[in-house]
């Protein structure tokens, strides 16, 4: 009897959270999946089941394909750049510097700023008469480069904004990972004659795998779900050159075609789930146990 009570007791305590989770997460998720197979349009009466029509439409729609392409470009770029800069900063700020705590704070600060603030800042910086062009002009180059209004450079401005905002956050996770590596491994490697580079590739990187796993997975998810940066900085333009999946979903919701927008959301969610699972699994296999 006592054993039975002990087994059921944790379940009782978890019930309220499970109920809330079920009502506010699982149910809407299942409803969303069901609605993605309908022609739900708030400008029309009635909802009818339409099978895979929404999905067939998506993969023949130019806007959807363009947004997938732009989303993948942004994702690829931010995964590499966030992690590369984050790791470099972590190496630098893990050293014994007097100002390292201050510097860590400075680099982390952008992560806590609102996207609206950052977006307005970048809009001002990257205007034709903005500080970026003025800085470039100092070195004699043409100082009238169009950033946000150029189809290719607009996408890179979005990427720069994203990397600037989040590198500090990833730096902190890498610093935590570096600090968890026992010094004895480095001492033993030095004694065995291993140079700095060999230590990095044979000790640091393998031992840092859990942190790399977290960071790469988080930046992959963040990249695929990019929205605020585009919303504030470019609005999907010029033309459709920075149109991303989440922003397209937002636009389609705005037209009242909820069935189609929900189908797009389902495709995006599936993308995120599959890619994040694959990447996480890849890095998990390479984690080294202490």
């Amino acid at each position, binding site marked *: 009897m006592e054993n039975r009570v002990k087994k059921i007791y944790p379940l009782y305590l978890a019930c309220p959270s499970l109920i809330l989770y079920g009502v506010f997460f699982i149910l809407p998720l299942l409803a969303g999946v069901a609605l993605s197979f309908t022609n739900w*349009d*708030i*400008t*029309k009466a009635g909802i009818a089941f339409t099978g895979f029509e929404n999905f067939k439409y998506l993969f023949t*729609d130019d806007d959807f394909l363009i947004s997938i392409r732009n989303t993948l470009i942004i994702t690829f770029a931010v995964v590499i750049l966030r992690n590369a800069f984050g790791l470099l900063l972590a190496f630098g700020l893990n050293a014994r510097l007097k100002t390292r705590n201050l510097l860590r704070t400075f680099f982390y600060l952008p992560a806590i700023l609102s996207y609206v603030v950052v977006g307005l800042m970048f*809009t001002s910086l*990257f*205007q*034709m*008469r903005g500080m970026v062009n003025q800085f470039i002009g100092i070195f004699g180059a043409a100082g*009238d480069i*169009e*950033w*946000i*209004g*150029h*189809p290719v450079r607009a996408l890179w401005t979005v990427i720069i904004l994203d990397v600037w905002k989040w590198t500090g956050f990833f730096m902190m996770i890498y610093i935590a990972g570096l600090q968890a590596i026992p010094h004895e491994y480095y001492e033993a490697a030095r004694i065995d004659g291993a140079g700095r580079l060999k230590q990095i590739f044979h000790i640091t990187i393998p031992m840092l795998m859990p942190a790399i796993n977290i960071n790469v997975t988080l930046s992959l998810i963040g990249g695929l779900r990019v929205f605020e940066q585009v919303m504030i900085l470019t*609005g*999907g*333009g*010029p*033309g*459709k050159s920075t149109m991303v999946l989440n922003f397209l979903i937002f*636009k389609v*919701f*705005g*037209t*009242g*075609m909820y069935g189609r927008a929900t189908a797009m959301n389902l495709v995006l969610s599936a993308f995120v789930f599959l890619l994040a699972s694959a990447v996480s699994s890849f890095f998990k296999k390479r984690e080294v146990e202490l």
Partner: protein
Amino acid sequence: MTASIIFLNVACGAKTASSTETATAKTEQTTAETEKAEEPKKEPVTLTLICGQPDYPQGFDTVLEKIQQDELITIDKQIIDNAYDVVRVKLATNEVPDLFLANVPQTVTLFNADINCEPLDNEPWVSRLVNPELLKYAKDGHIYAMPLTQSSSFFGACYYNKKVMSDLGLGEPEPKTFAEFMELLEKIKNTGNGVVPIFMSDKDSWTTQIFTTLGMGVALKDKPEVWEQILTNKVKTADVPEFVDILSKFQQIYLKGYVNKDHMSATFDNAKEAVGTGKAAMILQGEWVVGDVVKSYNADLGSFIIPFTDKPVMGTGAYVKGIWLPKKSSKLAEAKKFINCLSEPKYMDEYYKQYPDFPAFKDVNGGSVHPAVKNLVDKYIATGNYAAEFNSHFDAVNSILGNDFWPSLSMLIMGKATPKSTLEYFDKALQKAAKDKGLEGF
């Protein structure tokens, strides 16, 4: 003796008259008190109003405060981005606001107003409207919103800085043909000492499309049957030579360098600043820009229309801002009372004292409208020399304008698309949207 009698009579008469007057005054006072007592007691009520950020009229708070004091009606303003989308969701989920602000009759199909909103044809203010025909929904003839501040709106023209033109020796220009317009821009470019001939703010795509929506509307003024053919899929816009011509003219303005270099990242606020401070000679806009520029920059503005087809025809909107009443509001009666009050001269006059305009009601004093706007109304609206803008013909599928057509204009002005390919893109978007909406012919 006689004098005494007369004196006594006069005194008594005076006393009588005085008594009578007092009695009369007392009777009147009693009547007034009775009337006041009989007047229905005003209960305080709060009504929600949803409105988009750019749509909320400046200076409107003064009017609302007055109504609150007099009628005890408080308006809970919810001024938000994407107001139209929020209202549509609320109408679909029956969580309706009591009032919302939107263009009328342009957005009737957007809000399914014939199902969701109260027809207001029988309200007392309708008989006082300057332009009731403008407000009627073409399909059923009902009026679904009370016009807020204007009898008609969107007088599309080039609003120029008079001082800049005067300093360049150009006086008050009024080109009669499109070629003359281009010559004017060329002159400003060559002799302006860095003054931008025409400032474009293409980061805000709604400003980019002003040229095309005006021009394409004017281009078909004498061929109204073409609109019906386009809207029933008998003709594609890419096959309308007038449209190709307008887009070509639009592209030329950019390719010839008549616009600011940073046009792709410039905003509407930048445009107002540029023309207000004299960095630009003119901007192509609607009349709403005049008040802002004059107030903020103390600039003197003039205006002229672009002669898109070498004729004196102005492109204009077929809508005004209006207040709509969802049928399912729990305070429909109070909402009607509010708009009836609002329409009265004692409140509307208060608004126009601050922002002169063309009032929607005959007995309202609109104040002295800026000459740059009055000039256009007198020359083109009053004489019938105007045409409805291109956008007004696509109300049923208007999402394709902001989502597809306006962004595609960016490619055109950067020289990465041709006029024909831009229109073909629009046709494709129109096909998709019209099929989704189940429009006849698609």
